[in-house]
């Protein structure tokens, strides 16, 4: 069976990391350079492996692709797809910027919400979009997430949320800041109703999102190597004028300090989430 050795995981990060055998590379196929192992990976192989390099490095993933890989086929029903932020403060340059971002990302806003099944477990799902101003939280993002949690309370559903965010969207000023309080209040109501909320923190989860719904889940999971923190590393370095410790603000360190339950590589996430959802739905089983 030595012939099939290439199918075996080479290291811990890679365990279960391959969804299939490596795809045959086309001649002249575009490649992506891995920032971790610095190897060039053919795009087809990267895509076949959920945007995870064979060294275990997780590339950022678009919200729609994530939904496709994590939910049961055809089970996702999007909610509030047209909802988006205006320019409440007439912030200079915001209208033009967000217009460009909408075209480039193909999304109206930085979060996609809906209902779905994961391993036949029904839930509400939100997935933030890194390609939309790095998942920045403005009024519409806050509103959509709040509406989703309210819907989940009404229909007694668990919530699964994938976070990726640089924080609150400064172009919407105080209104963005208030979304932290608004979403937190909605999470609290969901929690008080005895319902499960699982957050999966992906690279990067920082600022106002870390300081609100990302850190308020019953179970907090993280992707390997993701940046998780409140203040930006650059700002901390400027403020303290000291070198930052190794691995600062990575999933692994944040877990070491007790703020993450488990690190789950992308390939194992669906099964992991399904199992967790199932364990909290035992009344339906017996």
């Amino acid at each position, binding site marked *: 069976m030595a012939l099939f050795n290439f199918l075996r995981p080479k290291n811990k990060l890679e365990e279960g990391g391959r969804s299939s055998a490596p795809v045959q590379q086309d001649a002249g196929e575009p490649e992506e350079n891995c920032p971790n192992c610095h190897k060039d990976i053919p795009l087809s192989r990267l895509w076949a492996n959920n945007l995870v390099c064979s060294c275990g490095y997780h590339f950022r993933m678009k919200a729609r692709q994530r939904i496709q890989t994590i939910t049961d086929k055809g089970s996702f029903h999007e909610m509030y797809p047209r909802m988006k932020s205006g320019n409440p403060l007439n912030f200079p340059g915001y209208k033009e910027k967000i217009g460009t971002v909408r075209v480039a990302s193909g999304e109206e806003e930085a979060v996609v919400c809906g209902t779905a099944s994961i391993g036949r477990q029904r839930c509400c799902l939100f997935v933030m979009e890194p390609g939309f101003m790095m998942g920045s939280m403005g009024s519409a993002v806050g509103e959509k997430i709040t509406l989703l949690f309210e819907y989940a309370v009404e229909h007694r559903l668990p919530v699964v949320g994938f976070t990726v965010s640089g924080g609150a969207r400064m172009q919407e000023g105080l209104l963005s800041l208030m979304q932290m309080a608004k979403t937190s209040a909605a999470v609290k109501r969901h929690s008080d109703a005895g319902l499960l909320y699982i957050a999966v923190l992906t690279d990067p989860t920082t600022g106002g999102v870390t*300081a609100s719904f990302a850190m308020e889940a019953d179970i907090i999971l993280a992707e390997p190597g993701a940046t998780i923190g409140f203040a930006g590393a650059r700002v901390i370095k400027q403020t303290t004028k000291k070198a930052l410790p190794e691995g600062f603000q990575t999933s692994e360190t944040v877990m070491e300090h007790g703020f993450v339950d488990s690190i789950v590589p992308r390939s194992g996430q669906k099964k992991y989430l399904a199992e967790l959802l199932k364990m909290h739905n035992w009344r339906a089983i017996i």
Partner: protein
Amino acid sequence: MTDTAYGRVKLARDSQRPTGLDYIRKIFKGFIELHGDRRYSDDPAIVGGIARLNDLPVTVIAIEKGHTAKERTYRNFGAPQPEGYRKALRLMKQAEKFGRPVICFVDTSGAYCGVGAEERGQGQAIAENLMEMSTLCVPVITILIGEGGSGGALALAVADRVWMLQNAVYSVISPEGCASILWKDPEKAETAAASLKLTAEDAKSLGVIERILSENEIGKKEFYDRIRMMLTEELEELTRDVDLTQNRYDRFRKLGQSAVIKE
């Protein structure tokens, strides 16, 4: 100086302005300070305890910047560590248990950003406050007395009533931070300050605060007497509110809705 937004920012940061402890000492009687978060340490940037408002026992919590260089260093310039927020939450829960209203004074450029603060969960500490304050069963009034810096200020401002002093500012990011991120130029802080809509008047028109407090005779007895009277009247009304937590939920629920296009 008060006619531009950035002028207000400078005023709000003025070390001569009354600080949190000044308000506690002048408005309330018999302040008993309570220390520590019962988990790790005591953060001098946040002061809290029990005091009497006229005769009514209340829990007071204030971010303290200090006046002199020595005080300011000791108070970490009013930049709280996670322990500060956890102490605040402990005192609020205690207030809830004993049916005391909570009054917070906020004055911070933001939660402290440092390696230790991150490692001990600055984000988590703020998040927990936001979540728990939303359902606190006792009236909560927050007054922004100087700088209201982002999440670090909001962590004490999930209240039934939020008031601002006339020259206080409340913002999602410092004008300097905003300018350096958006335009890679901290010199553009003035433009950023104007764009961020961070003055008391702006906050009121956005529905983020209920009331602007005049700074006439600031620091004098009349000034504190006036605030004491307003707090007393407002608490009387809030104590009668049977839908307190529902109203607090609705207060924050509607914020930002006007900025959302639904189509």
